[in-house]
């Protein structure tokens, strides 16, 4: 407990304190580690790799679409590109992104535990993830898959001659990695909280990860078995979803979306958690309506299971079911809106500091709102029939997933980077990257709303000439976005060696994770802390001058005065 900056014992500069990073240096110590913090870093490397692959596929597509007839690739290659982009970005980046890196790293720190409840399962989950990654890369190298990330039958069972079975196997294995992560979080948050850490003292990050984990545990098995059935149908040539021999392809869509719609919440709920932390820290305020933010996460997780058929409005489902699903889909907007309003209210009269993580958080709030509202439009039966399978849908879910999840991921990464590595990155580089990502993102995807509204269908490798101007705008935006994504890769690596030492609490944030050293020792805390207050006791810092606490520059000034590390 006694690790508030001022109280640190004097440590000579040449004697590096023991951290989880320097406790052992062999490759073996990394590959067999059961430390949640090291596993988080293993995941960080892995998903960065997959993010790059998915990004390359997207870049090729965007360049290809510069001209109406297409510039680069053949039709079939284009199909394989969007399939790979979707599969890799969804299952190998977005779903594991925040939970397996920040969730793994932070949940034990935030609740005051030495590790997750099941460290071996945690490592097993990474190995499963890597096994799945191996199979998906194998499918890619052997020639790719052309069904789209949704694996709809009969594309995936009868029509495709590509490596569908291999890809399906990869996602099946990946599912179990995801289940193990979720299960670990649930048990950890239930049973491993430090003394005094009640549910309503939990950071909102933990609440949203708890909700995410419930979705992972309850939805993922359905995807696993559905894709297993597709694989069985393909390999044994029996009629499960094939209409010619008694099957029903729409049933496959039902089962697929029973997972894949809640999967959207697996991607966005952790982002909500990150943004809740960022907004409070950089407004120097406790969150407005803590309980509402906490319970709205659970509400989203729950209602998120009742809406899936809005992906199937034009698949000849019953009109009555369509109406019910449309209404239920509107309901999800309520808890989502509660969150947006609460973040905004937290900003109100806060002492807002525009550091890199906060820039990401503010970008998130705006982009998520736009993505969410277009989601309500799409949930409307009549409107959906017109824009179904157009770029309007593409733009909508990229606003949620890229404008939401990925920006929150970058925000969180910048926020907790000093905790993970002990070093500060260059603040101005960070701000420039955040601004580029925001601008590039909007330029990429806003024109796609227009494109979709005008009727350009998704998954086509060519288009009529009148759509060219929007496609060129979009590709221009994508190039800015690519620069924005590449920048952090360089300055974050640079910071590992040359970055200023961060100290335990560079942002002057509250919360248990900031009360241990940076990087934390192997067992997180010298002694398990006893919690006596909420995670957001920013009002306690107020007498020292709220404004002075906000920005990094101010913190730096304090540090030089304080003589820390």
């Amino acid at each position: 407990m006694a690790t508030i900056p001022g109280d640190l014992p004097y440590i000579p500069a040449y004697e590096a304190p023991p951290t989880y990073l320097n406790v052992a240096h062999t490759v073996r110590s990394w590959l067999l580690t059961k430390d949640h913090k090291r596993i988080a870093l293993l995941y960080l490397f892995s998903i960065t790799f997959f993010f790059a692959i998915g990004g390359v596929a997207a870049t090729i597509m965007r360049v290809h679409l510069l001209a109406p007839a297409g510039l680069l690739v053949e039709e079939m290659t284009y199909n394989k590109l969007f399939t790979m982009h979707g599969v890799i970005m969804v299952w190998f980046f977005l779903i594991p992104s925040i939970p397996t890196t920040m969730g793994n790293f932070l949940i034990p720190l935030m609740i005051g535990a030495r590790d997750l409840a099941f460290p071996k399962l945690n490592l097993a989950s990474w190995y499963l993830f890597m096994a799945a990654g191996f199979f998906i890369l194998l499918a890619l190298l052997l020639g790719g898959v052309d069904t789209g990330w949704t694996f709809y039958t009969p594309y995936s069972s009868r029509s495709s001659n590509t490596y569908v079975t291999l890809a399906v196997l990869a996602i099946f294995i990946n599912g179990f990695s995801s289940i193990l992560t979720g299960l670990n979080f649930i048990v950890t948050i239930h049973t491993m909280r430090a003394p005094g850490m009640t549910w309503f003292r939990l950071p909102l990050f933990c609440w949203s990860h708890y909700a995410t984990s419930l979705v992972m545990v309850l939805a993922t098995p359905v995807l696993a078995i559905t894709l297993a059935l597709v694989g069985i149908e393909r390999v044994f040539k029996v009629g499960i979803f094939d209409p010619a021999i008694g099957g029903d392809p729409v049933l496959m869509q039902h089962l697929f979306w029973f997972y894949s719609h809640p999967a959207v919440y697996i991607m966005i709920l952790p982002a909500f958690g990150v943004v809740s932390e960022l907004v409070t820290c950089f407004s120097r305020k406790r969150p407005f309506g803590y309980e509402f933010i906490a319970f709205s996460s659970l509400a989203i997780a729950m209602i998120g299971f009742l809406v899936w058929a809005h992906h199937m409005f034009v698949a000849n489902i019953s009109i009555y079911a369509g109406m019910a699903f449309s209404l239920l889909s509107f309901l999800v907007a309520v808890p989502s809106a509660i969150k947006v309003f609460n973040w905004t209210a937290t900003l109100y009269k806060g002492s807002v500091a525009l550091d890199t993580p906060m820039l990401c958080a503010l970008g998130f709030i705006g982009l998520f709102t736009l993505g969410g509202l277009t989601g309500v439009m799409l949930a409307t039966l009549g409107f959906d029939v017109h824009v179904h399978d157009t770029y309007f849908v593409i733009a909508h879910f990229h606003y949620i997933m890229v404008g939401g999840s990925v920006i929150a991921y970058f925000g969180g990464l910048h926020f907790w980077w000093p905790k993970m590595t002990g070093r500060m990155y260059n603040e101005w580089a960070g701000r420039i990257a955040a601004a580029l990502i925001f601008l590039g993102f909007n330029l990429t995807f806003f024109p796609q709303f227009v494109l979709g509204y005008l009727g350009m269908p998704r998954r086509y490798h060519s288009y009529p000439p009148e759509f060219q101007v929007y496609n060129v705008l979009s590709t221009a935006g994508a190039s800015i976005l690519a620069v924005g994504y590449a920048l952090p890769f360089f300055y974050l690596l640079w910071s590992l060696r040359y970055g200023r030492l961060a100290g335990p609490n560079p942002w002057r944030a509250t919360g248990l994770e900031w009360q241990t050293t940076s990087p934390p020792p192997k067992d997180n805390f010298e002694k398990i802390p006893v919690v006596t207050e909420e995670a957001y006791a920013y009002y306690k810092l107020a007498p020292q001058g709220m404004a002075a606490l906000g920005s990094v520059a101010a913190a730096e000034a304090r540090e030089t005065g304080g003589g820390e590390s």
Partner: protein
Amino acid sequence: MAEHKEHVVPPRVYASVLVALMALLVVTVCVAFFDVDQFTRAHHLGTGWNTAIALAIAVTKAVLILLFFMHVKYSSKLTSAFAAAGFVWLGIALVLIMSDYLTRNHPPGVNPRGEPKYVLPPPPASDRPALGQQPGSPGHYH
């Protein structure tokens, strides 16, 4: 996390549960060979009773196993909640998927009893269409 004394269930309870389970097994097999619907139709009680009884007995058996063999009766509320969650979510899947299938393609008045009827063409006598060939004419429903 104060450790409290774990509840130890006496073997007598397990034995009684086993006897009940075996009895239910015998009942469900016997009912399967008896056309309950003949009786219920005569008394205007509807049809589908064989299925309903078989499922009710299965649910009873499962509840007995969960409560006693799996100690849910003696466990914390949290355990019961997780035990229930799987079934509740399965119920969500079943109800919402059926909400589509049971109300499909029925303009009001056409098929008021809501019984979808599907017809497949008779299979070709020789072999099935291989993968990659043109699929045969799909089943249609009316």
